[in-house]
């Protein structure tokens, strides 16, 4: 087990060194014109910037290591579901003052869905599951409707983009189907919450592009955003990148 892990790590390391060998600029020059560059940067280069970030030494052993391969991706999903479940648990525990009965009912549903997701991953991962994360909600004013709904909307859109970006990193078909079963529920949440914040924005052009495609994000992109709400250090350096 240890040996296998070491092999994986050294393969990763080799991959990163090679990725550094050909300068990014030469690839961009190869790829073409200015207008194209912008789009390529979004799809093609994101993984590379993630890699170079991972290259920086990671001091200390505190926090959790998501692990590698499919287990790593499932732990990544588990981490996000922990964050969401903790958030909605607090929302229902201390609802904002102007909350309507209808909102309370649906936000309670969402809390239960996120708890179901969290517990599912915990059970499915069993001994390979990361520990419970310590969240940091100090930036959220749970008495404020705007703060709560704004955060909820951001979490749901982030969750959708995380699952969309992680799908192609999974190797096991059944895990992909499970991720698919969850992501559409997150998208249903997102559309509802977006409309609460801004009517008509259920699939706004800040999340759906002009080809009708939703947003996907790589794990490093997602964790950078989610990290603002998590105290526990998350080591994602062994996650697959393609």
């Amino acid at each position, binding site marked *: 087990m240890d040996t296998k892990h070491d092999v994986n790590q050294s393969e990763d390391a080799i991959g990163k060194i090679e990725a550094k060998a050909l300068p990014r600029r030469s690839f961009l020059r*190869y790829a073409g014109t200015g207008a194209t560059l912008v789009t390529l940067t979004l799809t093609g280069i994101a993984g590379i910037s993630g890699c170079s970030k991972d290259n920086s030494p990671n001091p200390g052993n505190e926090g959790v290591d998501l692990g590698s391969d499919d287990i790593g991706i499932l732990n990544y999903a588990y981490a996000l579901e922990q964050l969401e479940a903790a958030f909605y648990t607090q929302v229902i525990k201390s609802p904002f003052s102007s909350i309507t009965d209808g909102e309370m009912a649906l936000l309670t549903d969402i809390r239960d*869905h996120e708890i179901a997701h969290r517990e*599912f991953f915990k*059970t499915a991962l069993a001994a390979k599951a990361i520990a419970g994360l310590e969240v940091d909600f100090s930036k959220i004013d749970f008495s404020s409707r705007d703060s709560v709904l704004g955060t909820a909307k951001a979490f749901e859109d982030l969750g959708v983009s995380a699952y969309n970006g992680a799908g*192609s990193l999974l190797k096991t078909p059944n895990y992909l189907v499970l991720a698919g079963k969850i*992501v559409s*529920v997150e998208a249903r949440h997102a559309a509802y919450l977006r409309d609460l914040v801004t009517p008509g924005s259920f699939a706004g052009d800040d999340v*759906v592009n*002009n080809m009708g495609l939703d947003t*996907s994000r790589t794990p490093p992109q997602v964790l950078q955003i989610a990290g603002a709400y998590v105290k526990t250090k998350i080591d994602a350096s062994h996650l697959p990148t393609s």
Partner: protein
Amino acid sequence: MNLYHIIQEIEKTDPEVYDRLDSRRAVMKNFAGFGKKLAAAAIPIAFGSMLNKAYGQGTATSVLDVLNYALTLEYLESGFYAMGNAAATTLIPTTEEKNAIKVIGDHEAEHVTFLKSAITSAGGTPVKKPVFDYTAKGTFPDVFTNYQTFLAVAQTFEDTGVRAYKGQASNLMSNSDVLTAALNIHSVEARHASQVRQMRKANNFGDVKPWITLNQSGIASTAVQPSYNGEENTNQAGVQIKNINGMKVSENAASEAFDEPLTMDQVLAIVKPFIVA
């Protein structure tokens, strides 16, 4: 998706990869042309087509089959909203709702355009747009004159679309770019479904939530039931979600928390009444 990595990987075994891709200039032209029309997500697909040309390998038939299947469903949806929007003055009561249906219809039309381009880029031929009968052979005779019927059909199309894409995800694993694009469409369909359900609720057309409870459609017609059968599942990968780990997760919530896939055959049976030829 990491184009850079893919080129590098190929270069390891084939140092001439750059020459095979026609020429640097042709590659740039390809990227630029595709980029203007399709932008980010389609560029990898365009890239895939370049590789196919370079190495004489066709894209797996199953991926093309899935894309054409998806295209058929998007034709169905986009044609539906096009007719709904054309009848909006008399069909849709408020400006807010007119706008929402417009947004959804625009997305479906964009999906048609995207899928056609993706199929062509991958070396396939897009299927022709079928002739549709949105009354489903008389099951929904007032679909474009009665807002309640219109939204019931819209909800069914969106919820079915979500399940249809979900059912094909594992058939796209050989092509991560197509898979990611399909996932990015899948979640948009789910956003639409959520919105249409909220619109039905707001109009008192049905007691529905943005998510699917058990196998309930919230629609009077039993004709839509095949689109909801199976959604009552609360067992995921052998794990019972109801009251999981001692949590108070009701059966309703356990079923809502996971959307279920449909097979291609199931979906084709559902849409068959809407297809004339």
